[in-house]
């Protein structure tokens, strides 16, 4: 079967020998990209580890200012979004375009819920003056330099939130392409790649949640 015979325009690029090589290359490329994300976030995990080790009491006290239930809800929301994303890909593997669209919508909606909850958390902190560095004006905390906890909190959840936004953008792009009929059970690589990215976003939160919300 020549790639030119498929109803959709052939997505085989000229420098690849066949679709399998192209697909495998895309997958390896996305995994390598995910590795760079691990190292990027990893730097912030390192900051967290060091400052927590230096000021364990302060971290313990400061973390009580966070709302465990909002954090836990967000964790469940992201886990659910990973399930819906995985199911979206599975639907496309079975050539079921409409369920795929619905699952991607669901993932998008759950991502939106995540961001809304985060918005409320951030707004509350801003109101109380629990902000990074010299903007920290909250006085209800014991321990040396409590602004450090909130610095690390805002940076890590902020960078994570930025990645959630980018993921949502990618999903919107996917929806557009699915509507144009660009994907099928034969070719759905971009959906799969977006899925990998989204699972990593979930993965990072899986670690962020206990580190910030469940300290002891």
């Amino acid at each position, binding site marked *: 079967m020549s790639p030119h015979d498929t109803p959709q325009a052939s997505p085989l690029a000229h420098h690849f020998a066949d679709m399998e090589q192209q697909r495998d290359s895309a997958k390896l490329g996305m995994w390598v990209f995910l590795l760079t994300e691990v190292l990027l976030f990893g730097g912030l995990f390192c900051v967290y580890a060091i400052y927590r080790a230096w000021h364990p009491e302060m971290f313990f006290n400061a973390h009580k200012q966070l709302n465990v239930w909002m954090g836990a809800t967000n964790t469940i929301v992201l886990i659910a979004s990973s399930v819906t994303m995985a199911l979206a890909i599975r639907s496309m593997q079975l050539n079921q375009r409409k369920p795929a669209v619905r699952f991607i919508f669901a993932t998008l909606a759950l991502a939106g819920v995540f961001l809304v909850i985060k918005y409320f958390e951030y707004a509350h902190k801003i109101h109380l003056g629990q902000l990074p560095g*010299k903007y920290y004006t909250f006085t209800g905390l014991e321990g040396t330099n409590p602004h450090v906890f909130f610095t690390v909190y805002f940076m890590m959840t902020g960078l994570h939130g930025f990645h959630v936004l980018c993921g949502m953008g990618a999903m919107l792009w996917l929806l557009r392409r699915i509507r144009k009929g660009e994907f099928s059970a034969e070719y759905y690589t971009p959906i799969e790649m977006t899925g990998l990215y989204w699972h990593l976003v979930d993965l990072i939160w899986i670690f962020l949640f206990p580190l910030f919300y469940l300290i002891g």
Partner: protein
Amino acid sequence: MSGKQHHHILPLSTYLSVGAALLVLTVITVAVSQYQLGEWNLIVAMTIATIKATLVLLFFMHLKYDNKLYAVAFLIAVTFLAVFIVLTMLDTMTRDEFGRGSIDKPVQYQSAPAHPGEGEEPASHDTAGHTADTADSSHK
């Protein structure tokens, strides 16, 4: 002809049971955190998080079914991250009092606080936390 592994379609039940397992583990980790276990809180929390992460990697991200290369690459990245954190902490945890310098000193802000009603200097109630931290640094 085409890679069998790529077209390997996981049954719906796999995704749903992994999802359920993740939810259960979340409940467990929240529950455990409600108890004061000292050092063990962190260890248990990180262990559970690692199990959750492994489930996501193996099933949602298909590492169990794909070319081993991706799993190896991921492990390498995590290993180097661990090297970064461990060797840096080898320094930060073995600093003497001189090396700890600014870290233990409470901060004196020059600018006025943004909320006049809460206008205490942060430095004034740090003595309790300060003592606790210097106790950690007394060994070389």
